[in-house]
């Protein structure tokens, strides 16, 4: 096969990896009925933690483990606010994102005397290709889990008919807690694959909207694991393409404006939601807090 095509596939898979983790995480949370705009912020926290811990321990797996733990903690705080206190899920999500942007820059300054980036990691302390395989595994696991396990079924019921789940004697809140925590774990890993796999350090606001792009992929994928994963690959491809096309002249004398490739995922999502390209329906109880009677 042509070398450049292989390269393109390779970079598509790499760029898609953080999206895959985050989109699957977001899907699990939203299928349980909890909107998760906080993905972006949790990813950012994960990215910082992974970079900092990998630097300290000189081990990428340790960094990833710490990122996962950090994602779990931030998601726990989010879950507490939206499930227990019943704070508005969108407002709380925006607050988590602001907090993450502030806190990572703040800690970066204290630890490394720079609020823009962490010191660079040597190549041998970063992941080479492991996250790509892990992301693939996560997609397949999530698909089987949602479809065949009882807990997966409960998650779907918590998002569609929480009352039915409740009357079956299963705590809706507990199922939602579990789903949000799981989405935190995956978003933490998404962050780690940004800072210690795709890049060699944490840089300020390095997620730059990828959490929202993961949400878009999840919607494009109709809140289902395999289609969501395909959407991530498509967005990853357009991202990789945009990097390749930077400054390339295709027609006329002007280079291709990258801005139009950048907005493609978001335009597609709007069109899909409007029913122009397929149909996509959100879980019925999405965004509604549950009160057990």
């Amino acid at each position, binding site marked *: 096969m042509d070398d450049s095509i292989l390269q393109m596939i390779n970079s598509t898979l790499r760029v898609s990896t953080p999206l895959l983790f985050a989109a699957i995480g977001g899907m699990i949370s939203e299928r349980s009925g909890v*909107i998760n*705009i906080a993905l972006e912020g949790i990813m950012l926290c994960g990215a910082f933690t992974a970079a900092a811990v990998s630097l300290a321990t000189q081990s990428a797996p340790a960094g990833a483990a710490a990122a996962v733990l950090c994602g779990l903690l931030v998601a726990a705080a989010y879950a507490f*606010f939206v499930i227990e*206190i*019943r*704070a*508005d899920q*969108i*407002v*709380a999500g*925006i*607050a*988590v994102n*602001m*907090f993450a*942007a*502030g*806190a990572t*820059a*703040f800690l970066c*300054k*204290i630890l490394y005397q720079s*609020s823009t980036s962490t010191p660079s990691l040597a190549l041998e302390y970063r992941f080479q290709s492991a996250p790509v395989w892990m992301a693939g595994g996560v997609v397949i696991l999530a698909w089987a889990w949602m479809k065949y396990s009882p807990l997966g079924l409960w998650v779907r019921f918590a998002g569609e008919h929480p009352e039915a789940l409740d009357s079956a004697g299963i705590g809706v809140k507990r199922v939602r807690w579990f789903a949000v925590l799981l989405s935190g774990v995956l978003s933490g890993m998404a962050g780690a694959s940004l800072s210690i796999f795709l890049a060699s350090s944490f840089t300020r606001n390095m997620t730059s*909207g990828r959490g*929202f792009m993961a*949400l*878009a992929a999840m*919607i494009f994928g109709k809140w289902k694991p395999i289609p969501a994963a395909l959407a991530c690959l498509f967005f990853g491809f357009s991202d990789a393409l945009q990097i390749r096309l930077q400054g390339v002249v295709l027609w006329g004398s*002007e280079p291709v*404006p990258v*801005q*139009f490739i*950048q*907005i493609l995922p*978001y*335009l597609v*999502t*709007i069109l899909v*939601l*409007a*029913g122009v390209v397929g149909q996509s329906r*959100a879980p019925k109880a999405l965004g509604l807090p549950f009160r057990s009677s």
Partner: protein
Amino acid sequence: MRLLRRVQIGQVLKPVFSVALGLTLGLLVTKIAGEDPWHVFKILVNSAFGSRYDLGMTLVYATPLIFTGLSVAFAFHAGLFNIGAEGQLAMGAFAAAAIGYRLQNLPPYIAPLVATLGAALAGGIWGGIPGWLRAKRGSHEVINTIMLNFVAAGCCGWATIYLIPNLDSQNPETGAVGANFMIPHFAFFGEAPVSFALPLALLVAFGFWFFLWRTVTGFEVRAVGQNESAARAAGIDASKVRILSLFVAGALAGLVGVGEVLGTAGRFKLGFSPGYGFIGIAVALLGRNRPIGIVLAALLFGALHKGTSDLDLETENVTRDISLILQAAVILCVSSEGVWDLFLKRGRKKEAKNG
């Protein structure tokens, strides 16, 4: 009577308490950096209100927040959640700059008026799109407005770089608007560019109140927001109201461009907004969607923004990033106010049992 009074006092006390709690929690974070939170707080207050200039800068930051707060609140009264103010304000500001750049020779007084209308119209159209999509295609405005924020950033970026760039600068910004477009500043605040955008914001806040609570259309908007099926039964065209509401919300956000382009920068700078659209959600929430509340909340967030800007110089380790943490803490505390209702109810039940 006593109950009524308690409820009203609660309406005022709850947000004040939430803000105080949020600020305290946020400031305690500075302890990690080895600073004295009280010392940091004093720097904050001094830097936000210490001099005419400082107060002026606080007002400069508060002005766009009044517009975005009103924008979010207007949609909210129609039962819609506008997370798209960030994109709408970018479109509005770009439109103002484009008009000012292309029509350099418009006469004084007419020029800023045209640019202001253009900003409102551009923001309005950008808000009307998700309104139309919600009304006609049933797709949720929350997702569409988020997506349109990114689309707006892309479009403005492209148009700024390729259509009307400032050729004398390396920064992504448009060429300067004509001199007739610039609106006057208040000399009282010295160097701080407190322009006529501030009184415009206050005027618009008054118009917001008048429209929603004193006109028939405003009543229809609130009716759809409070009970859509009842509104429909009363013969109100809910989808028309939805489109109109997000159009107005977008226009309000678009007016941010007046202060930024015609008052301060004189051009559109890509990425000029430090998240005014998102902070507007917090402003509306804290201000209880009422114009006076929104103006006060915008002042608070403006003061936070200005206050933290001096921290880089005045402290060892605390940077202006702390403002994000403070804002997040305040938003979380304000959005968790449902907790107080739970406690109050429990307390009242107890009272009823005992009494």
